């Protein structure tokens, strides 16, 4: 028993060091911009940079648009698959997993080939078109997480009976979706939304190759040219991701508190 415990602890400590040490080192380094003492100078420089604010708010806007688009795409799909086409579920699940298998670089080259200025639908010719393409790409990247989250949320409610109850009371499809289904999977949608947000904020490949001023390429640019600021930026973006994860936890716990008494 004692031997077991020793190995368990060693594995845990090794894991903690493996994950935490680089983070601690990076954070510590980000405080050392001023020679000889710890300071927040690197953060001050980063936050004062107009490009930081521009790229960050650009990415936040795109994240929000991505969330809206993917909710509109996944909630009705997952709902319809559960209600009417349960046999298609494995197929749909496979399709939603594809973005994990197909690398973003392949997706973006596909986009550029299909929608370049000499194509039938020259989306890359305009800024709005390219932004739309980027949102579409982000939606694809977030699909595995969003779909799974929504599907899990739908599993917790009796989709078919609730739908039939609403229909017998005279409700049409739009009313059923907006008043019954969406409010009941809102917690799941939110956790999917936070994951999507974290993905979009840090995404580099799509934004860089479509040449849009997003936060990911900005981080790369700073990283290539400065010493302390990239460390500060990395800590900030870690903070954002962790905040998103924390919000997921919070929301899930809140929903469990209400569901436990059901």
């Amino acid at each position, binding site marked *: 028993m004692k031997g077991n415990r020793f190995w368990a602890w060693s594995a845990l400590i090794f894991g903690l060091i493996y994950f935490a040490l680089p983070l601690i080192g990076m954070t510590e380094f980000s405080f050392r911009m001023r020679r000889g003492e710890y300071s927040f100078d690197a953060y001050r420089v980063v936050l004062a940079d107009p490009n930081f604010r521009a790229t960050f708010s650009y990415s936040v806007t795109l994240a929000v648009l991505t969330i809206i688009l993917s909710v509109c795409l996944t909630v009705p799909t997952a709902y319809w698959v559960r209600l009417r086409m349960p046999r298609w579920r494995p197929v749909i699940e496979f399709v939603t997993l594809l973005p994990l298998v197909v690398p973003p670089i392949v997706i973006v080259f596909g986009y550029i080939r299909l929608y370049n200025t000499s194509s039938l639908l020259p989306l890359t010719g305009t800024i709005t078109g390219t932004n739309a393409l980027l949102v579409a790409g982000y939606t694809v990247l977030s699909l595995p997480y969003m779909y799974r989250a929504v599907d899990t949320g739908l599993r917790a409610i*009796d989709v078919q009976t609730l739908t*039939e*109850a*609403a*229909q*017998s*009371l*005279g409700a049409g499809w739009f009313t059923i979706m907006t008043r*019954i289904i969406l409010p009941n999977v809102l917690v799941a949608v939110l956790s999917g939304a936070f994951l999507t947000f974290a993905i979009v904020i840090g995404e580099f490949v799509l934004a860089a190759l479509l040449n849009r001023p997003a936060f990911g390429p900005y981080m790369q640019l700073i990283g290539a040219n400065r010493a302390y600021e990239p460390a500060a930026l990395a800590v900030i973006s870690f903070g954002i991701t962790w905040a998103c994860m924390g919000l997921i936890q919070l929301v899930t716990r809140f929903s469990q508190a209400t569901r436990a008494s*059901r």
Partner: protein
Amino acid sequence: MAFLELEHLRKFYGENEVVKDFNLHVEQGEFISFLGPSGCGKTTTLRMVAGFETPTEGVIRIDGRDVSRLRPNARDIGMVFQAYALFPNMTVARNVGFGMKVARRPKAEIEARVAEMLRLIGLPDLGERYPFQLSGGQQQRVALARALAARPKVLLLDEPLSALDAKIRVSLREEIRAIQKSLGITTIYVTHDQEEALSMSDRIVVMNAGVAEQIGDPFAIYGRPATRFVANFVGQLNTLRARLVDPAAGTVDLGGQPVTLGRPIPGPAGREVSLAIRPEAVALGALPGNDVTIEAPVREMNFLGSVIRIKAGLGAELVSLDLFNNAATRPPEVGATVPISFAAADVLVIED
């Protein structure tokens, strides 16, 4: 013309015919139960009336209007489900008012109607609760109020009590029947519980394998079952094989003893016939009203509390009879031969 008409309804799932040529006319305000084992097609028939299933053939008319191809939300029906199906994101009041809100009724009217419905189901103070804060019985009452709030033409109930425990089931079924009577709403009630069907209904449709075996009032269903299936499914029943001795006089040979029913039985002498008799129609000893008395050995005795069920042998067959438990008289011993009696009129001849 009846208020709700189901004519020549058929439903196929692939090759499998689950409802076979179903016909039923329901008068306004009538309470009809569909009774049958699971898989008999009763729920499918109900769901065709609701619009959740499309009949392969046949017509459904509500108040003279053909609704067979209409979508469920255009049929003016109220439905109560086994699983309550209250909307978990809405309060009780909003659940009850949902149908009227969808119909864009004025707010004041909705509020008044919701209050009226909550009073009707005896939960006037629970409007602001959420479904998860209610017991099963309360949830099902709210579901009933929700189904009735928008004044549907037909109320459909799909095994609404089977998820509840026994005591609540009995009190709620009385309540449902009282509410149905007070509103005079045409109702179809699906159940596999014969006691529910017998105690609540104006008429019962006994279904088996997609066929309506018998349609009739509870007394007819229980007392004069038309088929062997109905006889076996509704209530306890002794079915006995007997040999026809004299078709004209209705004399049969029952385990070696001649029994005369006093009415003709079709078929040639020597043919095997099925007889059925309810346990409560058989008495221990010769009773004044019972015109048939035979001797039978006691084979088994089961003590059920207020009732003692005795199984007596008639040749190879067993006939059950019930005795009220009376501390003053001791029941017969197993193995003793006792006289048992019944009225010939209570014996049903069942055609296979």
